[in-house]
C-alpha cells in the first residue's frame, strides 16, 4: 500500500514537471508563470506529504513547518511590499561642490 502510494506520488510529480515544461514552452501569456508555479507547489506538496511523510511525522515537526511557512510569508510579503508596489522611483539628486 505504501509502495503504491510512493509510485503514484513519483508519477504525479513527474507529470507535474512535464506540465510545467509544456506550459512554459507553449504559452507566452501572463497565465503561464502562475500555472508553472502552481505545478511547482503541487510537486513540493507531493514530495513533502509522500516522500518526506510529513503527516506521520512528530507534532513538533508540524509546528516547525507551520512556523517556517509563516516566516517565509513575512520575508517575502513584507520584503516585497515596497519594491512591488512602488510606481515612482525618483532620480537621486547629486550635488557637486
Amino acid at each position, binding site marked *: 500500500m505504501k509502495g503504491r502510494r510512493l509510485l503514484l506520488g513519483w508519477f504525479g510529480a513527474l507529470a507535474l514537471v512535464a506540465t510545467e515544461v509544456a506550459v512554459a514552452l507553449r504559452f507566452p501569456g501572463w497565465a503561464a508563470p502562475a500555472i*508553472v508555479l502552481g505545478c*511547482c507547489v503541487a510537486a513540493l506538496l507531493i514530495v513533502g506529504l509522500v516522500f518526506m511523510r510529513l503527516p506521520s511525522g512528530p507534532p513538533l515537526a508540524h509546528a516547525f513547518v507551520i512556523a517556517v511557512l509563516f516566516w517565509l510569508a513575512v520575508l517575502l510579503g513584507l520584503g516585497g511590499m515596497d*519594491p512591488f508596489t512602488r510606481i515612482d522611483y525618483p532620480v537621486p539628486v547629486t550635488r557637486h561642490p
Partner: protein
Amino acid sequence: MSDAALPRELQYASPQHQAGAALAGMWLFLATEVLFFGGLFFAYLFCRHQHPAGFALGVRNTELVTGTVNTVLLLSSSAVYAAGLLAAEAGRRRALLLALAVTAALGIAFLALKGHEWLDDFHRHLFPGRGFGLHGPHAGGAALFFCFYFVATGLHALHMLGGLGLVGSIAWRARRGAFDRGWTTPVEVVGLYWSFVDCVWLVLFPLIYLIGRAA
C-alpha cells in the same frame, strides 16, 4: 522485536521519544534552510521585478533539456530513497542497500550533468563580468540573472555533495547491519534532508529554466 531492544540514549523516555526528537530536530534544521534559501529567492523576485526582459533573456540562454533531465533525476532519487526507507522498515537490508546505491548514482549523475552545463555556460561566456557573452539593452539584467543562476545552483550543488556524503554514511552503516533490528530513524532523517534538496531544486527549476522562456 520489543522496544526495549532498540538503541536508546538515557535522556529519552522511550525509543519512540528518541526517534521523534531526531525527526523534529531535522525538520527544525530544514526550517532554517528554507529561510536561508528564502532570502535568495527574494533577491531573485526583486531583481526580476526590476529587470523582467533581462531575466527572460537569461532564461532563454539556459539549457532546458539538461535542467529537465536533472529534475527527473532528482525526483527519482527521492522516490527511490523513500522506497529504500520502506525496505529498511521491513528489515530488507539488500533492498535498502540497492536503493541507497541507486539514490547516490542518480545524485552523482545530477552533479555530472550540472558540471557539464556549467562548463558549457563558461564556454559561452555567460559568467557575469568582463566579456559577458550577451549583449544589447537587456544584457545588464541577464548578467544579474546569471549571478543568481551561479550562486543558487552552486549552493544547491554544495547541499547535494553533503547529501551524498550522508547517503554514503547510511549505506556504510546499513552494510554493517545497523538497521536490521527495526531501528531506522537515521535512514529517515537523512531521507528528509535528501528530499529537501530535491524541493530546493523543484523551486529553482522553473525560476531558472521556465518562466519567461516563451516570451
